[in-house]
Every structure is written in C-alpha cells, then in structure tokens.
C-alpha cells in the first residue's frame, strides 16, 4: 500500500515538474516587442479622446527619439486633427478617383454640344473641388506645421499625405482670397490692393508647384505626367514675374 502511494506521488511529482519546465521554457522571449506600434498607439488613444495638444507633444518627443516615417506621419496627422482635418473630410477626394457625375442645365437651352461637354466637365471638377474641406486661417497654421514635419521625407506614402494636406491648404487659401477679393472689388481699389492679390496668386502657384513635386514622389509611375504639369506651372510663374506694374498707384 505504502509502495503504491509512493509511486503515485512520484508520478504526480514528475508530471508537475514537466509542466513547470514547459511553462518556464515558454517564458523565453522569442519575438522583439512591437515597440514603435505600441508607442504610436498610446498617442493615437489621446487623439481618439480629442487630446490633440497632448498627442502633438507626445509625438514630437517620440519623433526626436525615433524619426521613422510612421512617427512623422503620426505627428503631422495630430496637427491635421487639431485643425479639424480628419479622414472623413479627406477620404472623399483622395480615395474616390472617379469624378462625380453632374448634369448641367445647358443642354436644355440649345447650347452647342462641345460647350455642354465643357460645362459638364467644369461642373464635375467644381463638385470635386467642393468636396475638399476649407479651414480658417488660424487652423491653417497647424496644417503648415504638419507640412513642415513631412517636408524632408521622400517616401511615397508620406508625400501623398503631404499632397493631401497641401490641397486643403490651397483650397482654404483660395476660399479666403476670393472672399477678400469680392470685398475689395465692391469698393474703390488701387494698384497696391491689386498687387497684394497678384502676390497671393503667385504664392498659390508656388503651392501648386510643390503639390506637383509631392505627387511625383507619391506616384513614381506617373512622374512624367506631374513633371509636365509642374513645368507648365513654372512657365506661368516666369510669365508672372515678367509683368510690368505701373509706377503710380492708379485707382479704379
């Protein structure tokens, strides 16, 4: 009886030791922890809770330690988020490539076919343009900061995000500029007023040129196409530089 009991105890002890050994062996780390993702997740949680200031501070410190493209994108997106530019505002004009279908009323008024086609195309572009969010001047500063974060990175995904933010900057600048222009031309305006708008137009062209550079890096397979557009924009800039302004401050 005692022998049986001793044998039982021995068996139990062996099994216990076996299980214990297995469990301890399993403790040996075989994978490197996903430290960057874990670190990024912490900042994204702050953004989910609307704590953008803290997220910007957190990602800025993280980017100093680890200047990986994902960290830069996270920091830029935190600035964009604080400016109110989230995925739902940019998805419709970035991800949906086909232009919206718009029917103009021109056809029913007996206008030429070519003109109708042109108007339809313009209407579709206008519809697409309307999908781009426009933000106020104060928030634009955050987008400029985001672009600054991304400026030296040539990775296609980074350049595409920079291009997306630049489009929002362009739309916002154009919207504000046009609004001011309408106010200006409703009253008496002079050469100096006009010069300010001319300079504004040149800055818009500079941004369009940078946008072309972003798109060339984002889509290397379409590089030639965007290069051609960039060349045309540069020619426009050169032509603008050749314009001679009257010396006296003429008013209209």
């Amino acid at each position: 009886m005692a022998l049986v009991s001793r044998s039982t105890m021995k068996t139990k002890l062996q099994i216990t030791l076996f299980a214990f050994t297995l469990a301890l062996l399993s403790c040996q780390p075989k994978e490197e922890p996903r430290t960057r993702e874990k670190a990024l997740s912490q900042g994204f949680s702050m953004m989910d809770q609307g704590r953008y200031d803290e997220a910007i501070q957190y990602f800025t410190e993280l980017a100093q330690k680890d200047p990986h493209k994902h960290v830069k994108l996270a920091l830029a997106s935190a600035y964009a988020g604080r400016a109110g530019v989230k995925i739902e505002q940019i998805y419709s004009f970035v991800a949906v490539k086909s232009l919206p279908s718009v029917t103009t009323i021109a056809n029913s008024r007996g206008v030429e076919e070519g003109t109708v086609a042109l108007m339809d195309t313009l209407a579709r572009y206008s519809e697409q343009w309307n999908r781009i969010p426009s933000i106020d001047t104060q928030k634009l500063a955050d987008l400029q900061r985001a672009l600054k974060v991304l400026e030296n990175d040539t990775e296609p995904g980074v350049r595409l995000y920079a291009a997306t933010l630049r489009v929002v900057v362009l739309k916002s600048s154009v919207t504000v500029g046009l609004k001011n222009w309408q106010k200006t031309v409703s009253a008496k305006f002079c050469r100096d007023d006009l010069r300010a708008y001319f300079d504004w137009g040149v800055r818009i062209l500079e941004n369009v040129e940078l946008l072309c550079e972003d798109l060339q890096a984002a889509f290397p397979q379409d590089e030639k196409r965007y290069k051609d557009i960039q060349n045309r924009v540069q020619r426009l800039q050169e032509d603008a530089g050749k314009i001679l302004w009257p010396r006296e401050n003429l008013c209209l």
Partner: protein
Amino acid sequence: MFIRIFLLSLFICSLAWGETLPTAVRDGSTRFLSRSLGSACYTLDSVQRGLPCNPAVTAKERARRFDADFFAGTQAEYLKEAENLLHGNSDEAQVARFFSHRESIEAEVSLEASFQAPKWGVSIEPYRLVAVSRFENPSLPMVDLVIAEEQSVKGQIASYIHDNFYAGLQARYTHVRFIGDYFALSEAMAGERDDLFSAQELDLIYLEPGFLYAWEDLPWQPQISAVLAHWGVSSHKTEQYPIQPTGLLGASLRPVVPLGLLELGIQFELASETRNVRDAFRAALAYQLGILQAVLSVSDSDHSAGFLLAYKSFTTGLSYWDQNQNRGVFIQLGVTL
C-alpha cells in the same frame, strides 16, 4: 500543488511578454469549437467536432470517429460598411464610423478533416484563409493587416495516467503564406503599395501539452483541465505570428437535468495579452437535446453563441459572436463517419 505551480509559472511568463496579435489567427483548435466556446473549449468536451481542444480529452475517447468540416464567416456589418466605402457611397459620418473601429476585424474560411481513435487522433486542414485588420488614428488611419493562407496538420496522443488523471500532447505543424504589415492609409494608396503587399512564407511547429482530472464516476462528472497552448518554434521571427504561449486552466460540471445533457464550465486564460484579471475569465455552457446542441460563452469583452444540428452523418451549425459592437456570424457544415 500541480495547479498552483502551473498557475504561478504561467503568471511569471505573462509578465515577461510584450504585446500579442489576435489569438484567432494562431489558435490551433477546431474552428467551430474555438469560435463558439472561445477558450472554454479546452475544458468543456461534450460538444465534439474534430479533435478536442485539450489533447488529454483524447484519452477518454471510446470510439473511432471521422469528421470533415467546412467553416466560414466574418463580421457582416463591417463587410457592408466596407462595400459602401469602396463604392463611394459613404458620407462623412459613415467614413468616420468605419475607420473608428479599434478592435480587430476578422474573416475566416477553413476546410478540415480529422480522425479520432481511443488515445490518439490526427487532423489535416488543407486550406484556411484568415484576414485580420485593425485601425488606429482618426486623422490618418494606420492599418495593421494580416491576410494569411494556411495548411496545417496536427496529431494528438493521450493516456490515462492514474486515478482520475489524464495527460495528452498535441503536435501541430502549420505552413503559412501571408501578407501583412503595419502601414498608413496613404502608403497603401501611393506608389509603394506593391512593396506592402508582398507575400511571406513561414513554418510553425507547436507542442501543446494538456492535462485533465476527470471524476467520471461522480454524478456531476466534475473535471479540471490545464493546457499550455501556442508553445513552439517558427522558421523565422515575424510580428504577425509570434510564438506566445498561453496557459489555460478550467473546470467543468455536468449537472443532472431531467432532459438532455448540460455542461457548465469556467476557464482561466493567461497570456501576454491579458491586461487584467477580468479579461482572463470566461464562462460557458453546452446543452444537448437529441439532435440539437447549443453552446453559449461569455467573457468580460465578448460573448458568443452557437448551435449544431446533426442529422444522420451530417452536421450543420451556426456560431455568432459579439465583441464591442462588432458582430460576426460563422457557418459550419460537417460530415461525421
């Protein structure tokens, strides 16, 4: 003593580990059992499809059985949202909702055949497709994506050891071909997308011991189980398929009911992803009445339910689970010979 030492050593392990990927990608249990019962399938053994989750249960088998199963499912709501998004039919609120999912989104298709005899069993899964994705960042979504095609074989041996004690071992080999990366949405749309979606291959071998104390002669047939799952080696290190052992301790009872067979169980699961004690517990029940078997499983973060309907050699089943507003439905079709 055995249970205390086992529990303590697994707890130490869990402290030594970092973050883990969803267990559903790596779990080697029969698909219907693991989807319907979750980790409780390591203790509850009244529902039989394919090989049991705990290899020690194989030692209790009295008859030979061959099962062939088809299993498929996903989160239906997620698919609908994705379809709208891809067709450009989503408004701003719907886009925001789609990218606000913070839990893993999973889809799965599997074909499996298994043969079980007293004290041993083998199983082959010639095809399994798994897709898991997760989003972060409300401004520029970061995507953690794995799409994997797997082929697996596994074998179980088990033996009666002493008194009410059984022990078993499962050996599992899986070949995986997968694409997977962590990337920003803008990277997936830009020129580098081909690099992101290049396939990798991986071989995994697991040895998973299981133990069972079963008092089969008592009226309520109580049993206690302990399993060390996901313990093995891989051909190379990957973030998507980490080797992260999981310790499972459970207990079950079969209360005597006037009609049918009822089994109740509780499971304690300890892995590196376990954040607090509440996450580690799961309760489950299985009830069989004639040709119908129903299962229910509840944990702090999710709950699942399923049923199996057997007619002659054919079995059909449905499994439903719900986790943080994410609901998935899986269907199961099987043949038993």
